[in-house]
């Protein structure tokens, strides 16, 4: 049975409308709306490039692709394999800087 091309998505079940937003969601929304999330991401990108983290991840990905064979690797595989290593190797200074930025933002956004 064919589906029409621009059929609107099936509406989400009604019960979710009463759902209370978690603190995490509130913070996320505030970050996005103020544009701060974008800025933080840019800052993080810069720092991670500067300290060589990105290049390290790149070589890890290359090694993985070489081992598994170039045509047998999907993005999902890479993400699954690299994510734990990536998270573990973020320098503390970068973490600290971003935490501080976020704290400052939260203070100013009076959350």
């Amino acid at each position, binding site marked *: *049975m*064919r*589906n029409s*091309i*621009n*059929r*609107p*998505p*099936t509406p*989400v079940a009604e019960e*979710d409308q009463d*759902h209370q937003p978690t603190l995490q*969601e509130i913070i*996320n*929304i505030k970050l*996005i*709306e103020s544009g701060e999330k*974008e800025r933080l991401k*840019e800052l993080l990108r810069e720092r991670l490039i500067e300290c060589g983290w990105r290049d390290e991840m790149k070589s890890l990905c290359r090694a993985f692709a070489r081992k598994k064979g170039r045509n047998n690797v*999907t*993005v*999902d595989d890479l*993400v699954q394999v690299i994510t734990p290593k990536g998270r573990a190797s973020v320098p503390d200074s970068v973490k600290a800087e971003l935490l501080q930025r976020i704290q400052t933002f939260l203070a100013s956004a009076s959350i």
Partner: protein
Amino acid sequence: MSTGNPSYTNPKPCKHLADYKLRHGLTGYRSLQKLFKTTPNGRTSVEKPNTTMPRCNSCNGFQGRLYFCLICSTVSCSDHTLLHNQSENGHDVAVDMERAELYCCVCCDQVYDPDFDKAVMSKHIMGIPRDKNGDESIGERLVKRRRLGSGVVEEELVDLSKSKQLVSMRDRRAKSCYPLGLRGLTNLGSTCFMNSVLQALLHAPPFRNYFLSDGHNRETCRKRSVDRLCLPCDIDAIFSAVFSGDRAPYSPAQFLYSWWQYSANLANYEQQDAHEFFISVLDGIHEKESKLSNRNRDNGDCLCIAHKVFSGQLRSDVTCMTCGFTSTTDEPCVDISLDLDTNNFSPKNIANKPIKSNENSSISTLLGCLDLFTRQEKLGSDQKLHCRNCQEMRDSVKQMSIKRLPLVLCLHIKRFEHSPVRRMSRKIDRHLHFPFSLDMTPYLSSSIVRNRFGNRIFAFEGDESDISTEFEIFAVVTHSGTLESGHYVTYLRLSDQWYKCDDAWITEVDEGLVRASQCYVMFYVQKMLYHKANEDLSCLPISPRRDTFLPIAGCC
């Protein structure tokens, strides 16, 4: 964004993408264009119009990667893309919302389609705001394209009104693989001072873009002004010649002649000072351009290209040592002249007690010079100034800081010491260490003034300035020799590769050589403009916009 990998080939689409293309062609991409949002950095993302935070249709999650179905616009998180695909037959292809990249839900992998990228890129270009001074007619732009040199291979005449058309021009005549715009300048008789500065100007991104996009049209200028002397016209001619693709050394004779006429006192074959020449050229451009049109912003800022690119503002604070009252004046500047932080100098606080320095003060650094420039300077007792508060002449302390940074920062090191007392001049050969990346934050008025008050938190006018403080070096004018007899050489940094421009000879050099050189005038440009300029170098598209060359990913 990639700058064009020569071995780039279009990857074969997976059968699901191929299927999708067969059935829907480009309609899905086109309707998605309305949802593309591009940041100034060039990142494109997909944004649904009414929601700030997209959520997965199945689990309501908002974290991690979210995928937007090309057929029904359903959003799924990475855990539930397969679920969506299984429940809806044929909904295989989605778009990673954060990155605006294609994803095949069945293959669980990223897929690539040049048509999709084209759809993203054409939206990208339309997203960049138009310059308000868009009085350039399409006809003039066409003329400029032709004038860029017969060495450039042109494609069929493109209708420029269709802004989505991008023509990539590659200089096929170039014998070497040097980037476009590198051309030696012959020495016309001790004119290395001129050649060295010209090389830097030729590669100052906003200055270069202005001239290469026909910012100063010679024909229009000739018709408009009776005065035949026009430095901008001659500079435009140099730009055309240097960027034509011809690699044979070029003689800027016409320009030299014009400049002689402009600054008659320097019209001789004697050696001149490169910095003095630089200031004189900017002056000449300003004079001509401000005559042509009443280019002034509402707040009185001059909009001639020389000032637009190089002009910044310095702030001078003079504090009375008795009552603490500070009087502030702003002065415009096109460059900053710095004294060398020599060994004799030791950091002192106001009370003139030396502070113990734990740094190795035997090396002079650019940051040291900038620190020196922005240090609180106790004015001598013979330089008492009138304090408005005390109503008397008082001992004062002066502090300089940078109120507004220019697009291109020109830093001049005062190596030539003229002592009127001893009636002699000498050159300071001391080596100066300078960084390739420079963050000017600590020298801004906001930082300096805050520090003065012990780092208190308070709002500062100019805090919301949209000019960034990070700069990248792109040209160094170096001097070797003595005051009377010396030689200027410019090192240019293009796409992170250094080139030595020694009059007619251009060679690739190692950055170590540049660091070891004796810098005299350094040119830094805002980081974003530097990176944009690098992307332009290998692939010069014709932009429908007047001012800037636009980076295009993967167009080669």
